[in-house]
């Protein structure tokens, strides 16, 4: 496939169509956040499975087996996912667009032109506060359009919000 000739017959000067990675990494502390969050999630599942084991004296062997399998899965997920995610999660703001990549096994690029941005928010959950991190959410008029950047250093998040607010205020129209 060449991708050089579009369906309208326009000749594209891009040799190969491939999305590049956004320029900036998130804060390295985000790895800790993701690991902690995954660990807590798995802990809930493990405790839920351990309760019947402890309560019933006649512990069934398959209960032990599923518990062990869950533990292995949980440890593997908690160990691998944060590193993988850290390599994937990236963001970039240009003069006219916000561009992010997120996920790990399943990855998603999101792109919103600054001219269509409606609100720019930051949020810090209790776990994020523990790590000094923040999430920036950029919404557009689309119900499916919000662009979120998770695991940013608080200072960086504040800077992005200031920048984006300044550029969006310069843009007129109802952004639909």
């Amino acid at each position, binding site marked *: 496939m060449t991708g050089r000739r579009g*369906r309208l017959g326009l000749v594209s000067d*891009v040799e190969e169509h491939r999305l590049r990675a956004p320029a900036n990494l998130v804060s390295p502390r985000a790895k800790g956040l993701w690991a902690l969050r995954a660990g807590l999630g798995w802990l809930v599942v493990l405790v839920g499975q351990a309760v019947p084991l402890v309560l019933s004296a006649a512990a069934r062997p398959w209960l032990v087996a599923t518990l062990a399998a869950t533990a292995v899965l949980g440890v593997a997920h908690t160990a691998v996912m944060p590193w993988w995610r850290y390599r994937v999660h990236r963001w970039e703001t240009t003069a006219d*667009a916000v561009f992010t990549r997120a996920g790990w096994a399943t990855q998603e690029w999101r*792109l919103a032109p600054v001219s269509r941005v409606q609100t720019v928010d930051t949020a810090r959950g209790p776990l994020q506060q523990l790590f000094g991190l923040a999430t920036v959410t950029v919404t*557009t008029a689309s*119900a*499916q359009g919000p662009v979120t950047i998770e695991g940013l250093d608080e200072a960086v998040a504040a800077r992005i919000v200031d920048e984006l607010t300044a550029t969006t205020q310069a843009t007129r129209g109802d952004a*639909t």
Partner: protein
Amino acid sequence: MNEREWGRLNPLMIVVRPLNELLGLVPVLFAILVVGDVDLIRLGIAVGTVVLVVLYGLLSWLTTKYRITESRVELHKGVLFRQQLSIPRDRVRTVDLTAKLGHRLFGLSAVRVGTGKQEAKGEGVSLDAVTAAEADRLRQEFLRRAPEAAAAPVEEHQLSILDKAWYRYAPLSLSGLIGVGAVVGFGANLASELDLGLSDSGAARSLSAWVTSSSTAAVALACVVVVLVFSTLASLVGYLLQNHGYRLTRQADGTLRVRRGLLTTRSVSVEEEKLRGVVRHEPLLLRLGGGARLSAVTTGLASESGSALLLPAAHAAEATRVTDEVLGSRVDVTLAKHPRRALSRRLVRAVTPSVLVVLVLAGLSLTASWPTWPWVTGAVVLVPASVLVAFDRYRGLGHGLTPRHLVSRSGSLNRSTVALERAGVIGWKVRQTFFQRRAGLITVTATTAAGAGGYEVIDVGEEQGLALADEAAPGLLRQFLA
């Protein structure tokens, strides 16, 4: 009426609102009073309910008022929870006039105003109800852009009108089947609730005698015939109720207007400037019968509730014609196919669940003494059917660009083709699962303020999809391509 003064809803609403509620309860009340054992408690409950409903109607009439100023529409309402709604007039995108049977007896109509905001159900400004004449005045008022323009009746140009021949597409939807199911379930419930003793009646006894004496095949055939007949009738009645008097017109004030309905009449006006596209729905049966349905992609209309309907189930050629008329350009272009690798994904996704079902059923027949016919039927019918569905889904995948629209088609049992205005695209999402990455495929979503908020191009080749997005909205994606 002076436009600065507060208006009230029509006082008849004190009667109409409870009447609409009660009309829905008529079959139940009838059954209770005529057939069931009428005791004092039941009667008391029934009367009490009626009194409460009427009282609530009175209170909500007393507490609701609205006004239209130069720039805003304001509505105050609520009995227990006071609500004050105010929306700028220039944000009004759609006006929906609905008159239920109770409304129509008194010549009233409810007015619902949709704005560009994505609204949850029950939100938004709704005036329930004003006189039909006032409703029509409000419709023109809300969608009038220039304040000086005369409120005289505007010219309209007819785009489409109900054709009796379209009724043959009515049975090709599952709504009839669902309707029959609901009625049977409700009826059975009611019968057992009221101790009607149907099982003792003569008809029921001779029926059960016939069932026990006949062969399984005959009983099954009879069941199928009965269900088919009733669901066909139900879907025809449903089509009549919803689409009687259907008309699609283009008004001179720049709006599209859909009018339809037999008992509950409905008129939906959509501001054309904010119309972002059209979705063509072709569920499997309807598609095999050569029909299609259309709905509008626009802000201010909940896409599920049917208010976005542009054309009910009709001839496919008519659907194409109406689409072209509404969008003002041809969008039935030849669509580009997706890579062959998308077929394997469709196969895996369609066949895996049915294979799992068969395996579970087989396991149950081995271990839990279940009969063998469920998993044999599954293996013989379900698995091949899912393979066929997968092939059809792959055949359905396609995308294309016209000078003004992005076209994307997907689905088999519920095939839909969206033509989305390229100028209405306000961002992109590109998604790649682990397996898509290995197959070099992506799912591209064009986000928009209208309709579902985003429309997907599923399992398109990586380069193909990015080239499409780059070309559809020039200057946006280019800077992020490597």
